[in-house]
């Protein structure tokens, strides 16, 4: 009965197994950390695992940069019956972002975790960090719709626990985690309902196969209901503006490392899922989908850009300001998706990367300040420009990238976004993009004012040099990706091409 299995076993060399390795390395390291149970070993092992995963993702990205697609059959079972990992430019790029961020943030994590989390939780912290990382990588790598749900829940469940670890500093982390758990579970369950309805209509779970079979019956009401359930469900995870309520408290009360990692990766992986389902599974010419993008996603994206930016301006806490700015920036990515053009999609994907990097740098800076000043309220950070010059400088660079000033990563994506708007002839939208960037100028300027133009506090706690250094490296990368735009823009265009080709782009 198993004779046919060998026929499909195409993966023979080590390189053929890369797609699964990117997920398996952190997946197996996580329980090993608990079994060893040694605080000293947990951090280096986690770092090695994420660095290896980064290496694998980089190799994958190189392989698919020219438009190739890698199809990996789990256990040798051929799709559509078996689970398939399908790597193209879009997910290789997002996997590269996620593993890159994990590898960048872990050096920062060592001292930040020591400062913020009880010692007896350290091993478990790194374990959860790795399971969350595994989940995110899996969500992005897989080509199977139900597998997306499973990995989404692996990452979400570890995220809830990670956020709750902030309870040592502020007990509100617990309620933030609980609220996120309720909303996240509702989102995931909606997503599963959507997939169930799709399965009912098509009898398959493989994304490429789904796309083929949806094509014939795209005006079926069940398919439309499935689309609605999937968009709302994943919209909760993305934090599309009216569904964002879990995000601010979760980011503010989570430990600094967790805020940095989540802001850089979790919402980005969810946006990738949204992209994959809207474009590869439902196909761009799925007419109902097109209307959704223009009439539902576009207004909410613009609403997010303005409403969240306004709220960000009037905060008294740097970390909360950054959380609201994240919601606003997610608006830009959704805007890029709503343009439904190659440039727009490329802009969304580049912004996904650039914003992840920028926000990681900013939240890491907050982590340094939190150790030095005991909190992240503006009042506590007054005059930090003198006390912590390197960190403050890094914060300003990352802040400039958040605004989108030329020479930084943020500029590249906003430029592409405006280009996409003009290409479509939607110049009012282009003006709105510029206008909302001006709001970003205001909230970043408030930070600059607090850091440099107020009298310095008398005493600050000593901070670890590695934390400052990694924050600075992250900020420097914001400039690097603002100048060397080739890598990100090429990959994003390749990814956008693949996505716009619909299911044809999946084989």
């Amino acid at each position, binding site marked *: 009965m198993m004779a046919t299995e060998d026929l499909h076993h195409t993966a023979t060399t080590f390189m053929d197994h890369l797609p699964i390795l990117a997920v398996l390395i952190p997946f197996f390291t996580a329980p090993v950390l608990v079994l060893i149970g040694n605080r000293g070993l947990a951090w280096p092992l986690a770092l090695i695992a994420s660095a290896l995963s980064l290496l694998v993702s980089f190799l994958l990205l190189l392989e698919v940069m020219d438009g190739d697609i890698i199809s990996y059959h789990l256990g040798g079972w051929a799709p559509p019956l078996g689970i398939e990992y399908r790597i193209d430019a879009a997910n290789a790029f997002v996997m590269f972002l996620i593993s890159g961020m994990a590898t960048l943030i872990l050096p920062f994590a060592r001292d930040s975790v020591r400062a913020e989390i009880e010692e007896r939780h350290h091993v478990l912290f790194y374990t959860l960090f790795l399971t969350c990382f595994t989940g995110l990588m899996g969500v992005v790598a897989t080509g199977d719709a139900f597998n997306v749900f499973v990995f989404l829940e692996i990452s979400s469940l570890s995220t809830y626990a990670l956020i709750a670890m902030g309870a040592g500093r502020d007990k509100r982390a617990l309620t933030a985690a*609980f609220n996120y758990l309720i909303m996240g579970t509702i989102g995931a369950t909606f997503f599963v309902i959507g997939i169930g309805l799709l399965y009912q209509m098509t009898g398959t779970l493989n994304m490429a196969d789904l796309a083929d079979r949806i094509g014939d019956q795209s005006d079926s009401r069940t398919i439309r209901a499935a689309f609605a359930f999937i968009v709302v469900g994943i919209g909760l995870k993305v934090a599309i503006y009216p569904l964002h309520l879990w995000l601010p408290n979760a980011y503010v009360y989570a430990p600094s490392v967790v805020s940095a990692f989540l802001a850089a990766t979790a919402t980005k992986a969810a946006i990738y899922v949204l992209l994959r389902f809207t474009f590869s599974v439902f196909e761009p010419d799925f007419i109902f989908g097109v209307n959704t993008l223009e009439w539902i996603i576009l207004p909410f994206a613009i609403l997010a850009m303005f409403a969240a930016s306004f709220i960000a301006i*009037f905060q008294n806490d740097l970390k909360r300001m950054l959380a*609201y700015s994240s919601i606003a920036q997610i608006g830009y990515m959704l805007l890029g998706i709503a343009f439904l053009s190659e440039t727009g999609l490329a802009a969304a994907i580049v912004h996904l990367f650039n914003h992840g990097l920028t926000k990681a740098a900013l939240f890491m800076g907050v982590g340094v300040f939190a150790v030095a000043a005991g909190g992240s309220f503006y009042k506590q950070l007054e005059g930090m420009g003198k006390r912590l010059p390197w960190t403050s400088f890094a914060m300003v660079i990352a802040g400039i990238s958040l605004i989108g000033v030329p020479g930084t990563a943020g500029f590249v994506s906003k430029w592409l976004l405006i280009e996409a708007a003009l290409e479509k002839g939607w110049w009012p939208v282009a003006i709105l993009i510029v206008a909302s960037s001006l709001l970003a100028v205001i909230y970043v300027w408030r930070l600059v004012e607090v850091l440099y133009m107020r009298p310095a506090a008398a005493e600050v706690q000593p901070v670890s040099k590695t934390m400052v250094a990694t924050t600075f490296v992250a900020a420097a990368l914001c400039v690097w990706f603002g100048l060397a735009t080739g890598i990100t823009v090429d990959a994003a265009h390749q990814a956008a091409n693949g996505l716009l080709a619909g299911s044809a782009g999946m084989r």
Partner: protein
Amino acid sequence: MAVSIDFLVGHLNYWLFILLMMTGLYIVVARGNFVKKVVGLNIFQTSVFMLYVSMGKIEGGTAPIFPTDLNIDPEVLYSNPLPHVLILTAIVVGIATTSLALALIVRIREEYDTIEEDVVQEKEAKIVEEENKSFGPALGGQE
């Protein structure tokens, strides 16, 4: 789409699914007690389990177990086992979610001395008030 008795009876599993789903969702939204919220969440998830499990049923289908000699009679109808397998995974996820939620509630009880949402919110509003007093005011976005 004419609504007939056949339509109502033929879609019984969907009606029950929607009823359970809405009951669960309503409890999550309307109840302030954290444990009750988790109960609501469980009912909500269970409704999805039912949707999946009922879609695997094929009229006249038998249990999807092949005979040991592998001589499969093409006349025999089998139910679709895949949705059941999927939902096994979803049940595991549901249990993990529930246990994590309950663990969080225990911790909330330890810190806030209550598991009622409104009391917790009152206490948090007081903390925010204190923060605004010492660190300058903020406008909105703190709930």
